Structures are given as C-alpha cells and as structure tokens.
C-alpha cells in the first residue's frame, strides 16, 4: 500500500516530461498536411499530397513490403535460436552458463556502430563466396538483423523461463516423459506468452532497424527505414511526415489495445 503520493511539484515535473516525450510525435501531424514540397507548417492550406505520394510511389510500397518480409524472417529465426538457447541453459544449467549468456548478449551491449562495422565485414566477406547471404541482399540483411535482435529474445525468454516452476518439469520427467515431450508439451506451453512477446518485439526491432542496415545495404535491399533515412538527410521530404503519422498511429493503436486487454483481465481477476 502506497502511503506517500508524489508531491505536487513532482507531478508537475512528470507531466512536463510526459509532454516532452509526446511533443515530437504530435508535431509531425500538422507537418504531414503541408501543401509544400519542403518541411513546413501548413499556413491555412492543407493537402493530402504526401499521403498520396506514399501510395503512388512504388519505392515506398516496396520498402514497406521488404521490411515486413525481412522482419518476419529475422524474428522467426531469432526467436527459434533464442528459444533453443534459453531452454538449453534452463534445463542443463551448465557450469559456464554465465559465460554463454554473456556471449549471447554481446551484440546488445556493444556500440551499434561497432556491430554495424562488424556485420559489414561479415557480409562483404561472404559476398566473395556467394550471392545469397551477402552485402546488400535480402538474406544478408536478415542474418545481420538476427544477430542484433536475438539477444533481446534471449532476455525475454530467460525471464519467462525463470517464472516456470521447475517441479512441473521434474514431475513430467519422473513420470517417464522424454526430452521432446518435456520441451513441447510441458515447458513451451508454459512460456507461450514469452514466445509471442519475443517474436513480436524482435519483429518490431528488425522492422525499424537502421544503424546496421545503413552499413550493409546500398541500392538493392532498401528497407523502409533506409528510405526514410535518405529522405531525412539533405532536403527533408515531407512524405516522411505522412509515413511517420501512419507508423505512430499503428503504435498508438497497438499500445491502447494492449492496455485495454490488461485492464479487462485485471477487472476479471478482481
């Protein structure tokens, strides 16, 4: 029971921080309706031309579709690898579990730019021996994204496994369940929400990945973030405002739905 509520001053400061956090997200809305070809606030005249540009310019649609496919492949592979790894650590409790865990975390804690250069080296080296998993290809980007997002899946799944009661697994084993039965019928069903969350989070991380993608793509594998980057660097393209509004709307809707579901669950349990 919380007896001490934050003071008025703390509440006011927190409200200001909340405004600060939301301000840039709200600012893109008016800009996206500008009739001009450069970034400006509309002056009484509004236009949907930048929304139309997204639908009519094949580059945007191709970028969106490519990012969806890459995100799907990368998060599927990353979740599978991470699930195997976390399960293995949980069941086996190997002596060097901490070391293995540390290794798996390296891409998450290393400075993104160092990871980007490392993956650039990885993919340009592979380019010399094959054309599939290579610099500026679909599978090249997928593999690089798997490296970057798998650690996040490991963290989520390790947390999920930490909440599983080991005695369930012991009971299954003592009743003669084999490894496959224990994994697929006992443990995995217990962490299904963790698996879904891991898949979803890694998809979003791949979908919006830009730091590494910039280093490992040039003209063929142009993902949506890469397109946005190109439109942001020199002359700012207001089409970015339109696409940003769409992306923000999706996130707001997803977060609101999640909050509503949580509220309903809480009401049902009370």
């Amino acid at each position, binding site marked *: 029971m*919380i007896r001490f509520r934050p003071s008025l001053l703390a509440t006011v400061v927190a409200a200001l921080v909340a405004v600060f956090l939301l301000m840039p997200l709200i*600012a893109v809305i008016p800009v996206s309706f500008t009739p001009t070809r450069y970034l400006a606030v509309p002056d009484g005249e509004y236009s949907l031309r930048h929304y139309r540009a997204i639908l009519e310019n094949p580059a945007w649609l191709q970028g969106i579709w490519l990012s969806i496919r890459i995100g799907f492949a990368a998060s599927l592979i990353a979740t599978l690898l991470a699930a195997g790894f976390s*399960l*293995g650590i949980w069941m086996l409790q190997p002596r060097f579990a901490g070391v293995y865990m540390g290794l798996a975390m390296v891409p998450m804690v290393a400075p993104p730019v*160092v990871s980007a250069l490392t993956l650039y080296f990885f993919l340009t080296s592979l380019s010399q021996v094959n054309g599939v998993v290579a610099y500026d290809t679909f599978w090249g980007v997928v593999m*690089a994204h798997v490296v970057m997002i798998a650690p996040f899946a490991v963290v989520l799944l390790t947390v999920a496994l930490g909440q599983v009661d080991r005695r369930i697994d012991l009971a299954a084993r003592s009743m003669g369940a084999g490894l496959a039965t224990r994994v697929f019928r006992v443990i995995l069903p217990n962490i299904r929400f963790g698996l879904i969350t891991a898949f979803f989070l890694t998809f979003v991380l791949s979908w919006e990945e*830009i730091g590494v993608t910039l280093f490992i793509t040039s003209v063929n594998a142009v993902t949506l973030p890469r397109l*946005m980057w190109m439109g942001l660097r020199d002359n700012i393209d207001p089409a970015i405002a339109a696409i940003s509004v769409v992306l923000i709307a999706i996130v707001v809707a997803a977060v*609101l739905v999640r909050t509503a579901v949580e509220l309903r669950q809480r009401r049902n349990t009370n």
Partner: protein
Amino acid sequence: MTRSRIFLIAPLLVFLAGAYLVPFLGVMRWSVTLPQPGFGQYAVALSDPLVLGVIWRTVRICAMVTVISVVLAYAITLVWVRGAPVTRMVIELCILIPFWISVLTRAFGWLALLSNRGLINTLAQDLGLWAEPLTLVRNEFGVIVGMVHFLVPFAVFPLASAMRSVDERVLLAARGMGASRARIFWQVFVPMTKGGIFGATLLVFVFSIGFFVTPAILGGGRSVMVAELIWLRIFQSPDWGLGAAISVILMAGIGILLGLTMKYAKGSGK
C-alpha cells in the same frame, strides 16, 4: 541425453561466433593492416586533434545527456510507480508510446518541431516573439534534445524496479520519527533507490556512446560524434584502418566500463 540438450544451446552461440566474433577479429585485423601493417592507426586515433576532439565531444555530450535523461526519468518514474491509479495509466502510455516508435520517426518529429520552418519557430514568429528563426537543430542543442528524448524511456525501467522494491514501512518509520516530506524523499527514498539510479546511468551512458542516427540527423554534420566519424571514415573518405581502430577503441572502452561496473556491483554485495 546431455548431448541432445547441447544441441539446444549450441546453434545460437555458433551463429553469433560466426557472424559476430570472427568478423570482429577481422575488423581488428583491418585496424592493424590498413593501409600498412602496424599500430599506426591507433597512434593516429589517439593523437590526431580531430579524432580526439570528436571523442571528447562524444563523452561530453553523452555525460550531459545521461544526467538530464536520468533526472527526467526519475521524476516521471516516481509518478508512474507511486501516483494515483489513473495518473499511473496516463504516464505509462506516455512512456510506452515513444518507446515503441522508431528512432527515425522520433528524430523527424524533432526536425518538425525545431527546424527553421518548424512548429516552434513558426509559432514564435506568428506571435512576434522573435523575428528571425532561431537555430534549434542541426547543432549540439538539437542532438542533446533528440538523444534525451530517445533515452528517457530506457532509464525508466531500472528506476521503476528500484522504486517498486522500496519498503513502505521504512518511509513510515521516518515519518514516525518526525521527518518532513522533503527529508523523507531526499534522505530516505532517494538513497534507497540508488541502485536503480546507478543502473539507469550506466545503461543510458553505454547506449548513448554508440549513437549514430540521432546525432547524424539532428546534428546535421556540424557536431560529429564518434559513431558518425567511423561511418565517415568507412564510406566517405575511405580510411578503413582508422575507422576500424576507432571501433576497437570504442569497444574496449565499453568493455572496460562494463567490467568495472560488474566488479563494483559484486564488491558492494548487490
């Protein structure tokens, strides 16, 4: 039995070794072989005033960003964890929505607010506050604002877990002994959350050091930080050896920082 479980752990580690650790060794090799064998690039990196200037600017900006982010995050977390139920839900949305939105969209939002024809300058000129647009972006100010905006949600999570584990009875005891509200906050509550403050500070600082996208967009090439310098050395003025050497120095710096923290955390019995 044991062998089959090793097949769970191994794939991720083998994948990361092949796609990350070995290529990183390749980057290290670049740093001592390009353009000629030897440690010349390290000597350049640690003596060239341009590179040193960039490193110094990076550390200075990141230190400022870290302090501002943790202070802002502390205020908003306090209200998120200890506020009234409805306030808590509103604050949670204000933290989660920006958290899920991509770094590009957020950087663009700041451009829409701060640029010469952006919301703030347009509004201020319409109201007659200032006649000429103020330069709020494409400089260090813009970089700091954008980075703080990105990092506040990351600082919230360690702070929240520290604040949630504060024992309410200690605060009641302090009041029972006649401490004022301000005194309870500064001399009891804040010291009890110092583990969270420490964790948030470290997390934000480590994240900020390797930042690439936000400084590149909001700095506009005028306030180059380490990550952008590496990018320039690899893709603009091909000097791969120097780019690789700076990357290795950066990686070592982060490694030492994390190592020291872990030692400190262990030493203080946490």
